[in-house]
C-alpha cells in the first residue's frame, strides 16, 4: 500500500482568509478506486479543502498532487480535463437552460479535441452521452425541461448527471444528500456506489448513516486540520471524533 502512488495527495495544504486559517497543513492521500468520506463540523474547512483540490481556490501553502504529478498550479478547467470533477454543495445548474443543454455542455468537453474536433463535432455524438448521463441518474424523461422548473432533488440529480458526463476519474461530491428526502437519499447512495465502480469518490457529507454506509475510509476534520482517519467503525469509536463532531 505504501509503495503505491495515491491518485490524489495533498501535502501540508493550507488556505488563509485574512487572519483565519480555514485549512491548515492538511495532508490527505486518496487511493484510486476508494470512496473516501471527509466529515467534520460546519466551518471545519472541508469545502475549502476540496475547493483547492478542484482548483476553485488557490492554496496559500502546500501542494496538490494527482497521479504523482504536481497540479498545484493548474487552472480549474485543466484539472477537469484530467478528470478531477467537483459537484457543488448548493446546486449550481444552469437554471435558464434545459436539462439537455445542462448536460450537453460537460458532455461535449471530452469530444472537443483540437480545432477539427470543435468544428466537426456531431450533435448526435453529444446527444448519446447526454442521454446516457441522464439515464444513469434516472431523469432522462426530463431532458427538455428547464432546470429551474425541476424539483430540488431533481436538480441535485441533474448536477450529478453533469458531473458524470465529464467522465470523472475522481468525483468530489460536496454534501450531495443535503436537502434530499429519505427515499432520494437511498437512491443517491446506490448511484454513488455505481459511480465508484468507475471512479474514485471524495465525499463530503454530514449525514453519518450515509457516510457509514458508503465510505471505505473516513477522514475527520476540525478547525482546518485532520484530527482522525480510519475505517468507519474506527471513526465511530474514536474519542477525539466523538468529542469534536459526534457530540457524545
Amino acid at each position: 500500500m505504501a509503495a503505491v502512488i495515491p491518485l490524489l495527495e495533498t501535502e501540508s495544504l493550507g488556505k488563509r482568509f485574512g487572519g483565519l486559517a480555514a485549512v491548515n497543513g492538511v495532508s490527505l492521500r486518496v487511493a484510486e478506486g476508494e470512496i473516501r468520506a471527509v466529515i467534520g463540523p460546519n466551518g471545519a474547512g472541508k469545502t475549502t479543502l476540496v475547493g483547492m483540490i478542484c482548483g476553485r481556490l488557490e492554496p496559500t501553502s502546500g501542494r496538490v498532487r494527482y497521479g504523482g504529478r504536481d497540479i498545484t498550479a493548474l487552472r480549474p478547467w485543466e484539472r477537469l480535463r484530467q478528470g478531477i470533477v467537483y459537484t457543488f454543495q448548493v446546486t449550481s445548474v444552469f437554471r435558464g437552460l434545459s436539462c439537455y443543454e445542462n448536460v450537453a455542455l460537460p458532455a461535449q468537453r471530452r469530444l472537443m479535441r483540437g480545432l477539427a474536433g470543435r468544428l466537426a463535432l456531431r450533435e448526435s455524438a453529444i446527444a448519446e452521452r447526454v442521454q446516457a448521463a441522464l439515464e444513469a441518474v434516472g431523469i432522462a424523461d426530463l431532458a427538455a425541461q428547464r432546470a429551474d422548473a425541476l424539483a430540488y432533488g431533481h436538480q441535485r440529480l441533474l448536477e450529478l448527471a453533469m458531473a458524470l458526463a465529464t467522465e470523472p476519474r475522481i468525483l468530489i461530491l460536496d454534501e450531495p444528500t443535503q436537502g434530499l428526502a429519505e427515499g432520494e437519499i437511498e437512491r443517491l447512495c446506490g448511484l454513488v456506489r455505481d459511480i465508484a465502480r468507475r471512479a474514485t469518490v471524495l465525499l463530503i457529507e454530514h449525514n453519518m448513516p450515509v457516510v457509514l454506509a458508503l465510505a471505505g475510509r473516513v477522514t475527520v476534520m476540525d478547525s482546518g486540520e485532520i484530527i482522525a482517519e480510519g475505517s468507519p467503525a474506527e471513526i465511530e469509536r474514536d474519542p477525539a471524533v466523538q468529542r469534536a463532531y459526534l457530540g457524545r
Partner: protein
Amino acid sequence: MSARAPLKVLALHAAVLALLFAAQFALPPYHHTNVARIMVLAAYAIGYNVLLGYTGLMSLGHAMFFAAGMYGAGLPVYYLGVGAAGALGAGLAAGVVLAALFGLLALRTTGVAFLIVSLMFAQAFYLASLYFNEVTLGDQGFILSQRLAPLQAGGATLGFHEPAVKYNGALLLFAACLLVSLALRASPIGRVLIGIRENEERTRLLGYDSFRYKLLSLTISGGLAAAAGAMYALLFSYVGSTFASILFSIYPLLWTLLGGVGTTLGPLLGTGLMFYLVDLASGVTSAYLLAVGVALVLLVLWFPLGILGTVRARWLPWLP
C-alpha cells in the same frame, strides 16, 4: 434543441433572406435605400448580439469596431486607390485585430467594469480619430465615390452609386453575418458561450477556459461589426468620426434589446423598427433622439426580453 440546427430553423432563416431579396423589386426608391441601410446596420447589431446575447458581455464601445472597419476600408481607398474587395478585407482585419487587442486587456473585467472599460476605449478611439485629423479627416469626414473603382462582373460595370448594387451588397453582408451568428449559436462553441453567459464559474469548472472563449466571442463580434462598418463606407460612400461616437455604441445595444437579446433574428427586427421610429420622429421633431432614449428606458424596464425574446419565451421555444 437536440439537433444541431433543426430544419425549421434553417427554413426560417432562408425565408427571411429570400424575403429581403424579393423586397428589392417591390420597394419604392426611398424605402429601397432605407432597407439597404438597415441591413448593413443589422449586420452590425448581429455582431453586437454575439457578445451581449450569446456571451453575456455588455459593451458600450462597439462603435470603435464599426469605425475601425469603416476607416480600415475607407483610408486605403482614399489614399491608395485600393479596390472594393481589398477594402472590405482591410476593414475586417482592422476590426478583428482591434477587438482581439482590446479583449486581451479589457476581458480582465466583467459586468459593469467591462462596460466602462469598453466605453473608455471607444472614447479614446473616437478622440484619436479627431486628433489625427490630417490623416483621418475625422471631423469633416470624406467621400469615397470619386475614388472607388466600380465592380466588374462579367461584362457589366457595377458602380456603388447604383441602388441595386447597394441593396445586394448590403444583403450579401447581412446574410453572411446572419449565417456566422447562426452557425456559432448552433456549434459546441456557442454552447460554451451560453454557459459563460448563464454562469461563468460553473462553466470553468466544467473544463472550459472562459477567458479564451470570451476573447473568441469578442473577436468575432468586433469582426462582424467591422465588416458592417467597411461595407457601410463602400455602399454609402462616407467615412467620418461621427460613426465612432458614443451614439453609435448605444444604437446596436438598443437595436438588439428591442429585437430580442440572444436571438439570431432580433437584431434585424430591432434595427428595422428603430430605424423607422427615428425616421418618423425626426419628421415630427428635431429632438428625435428623445425617441431613442425613451425606447431604451421602456425596454429595459418593462420589456427586457425584446420582441423575439418574448416570442420565444411564450410561443416558439425552438427559436435560436
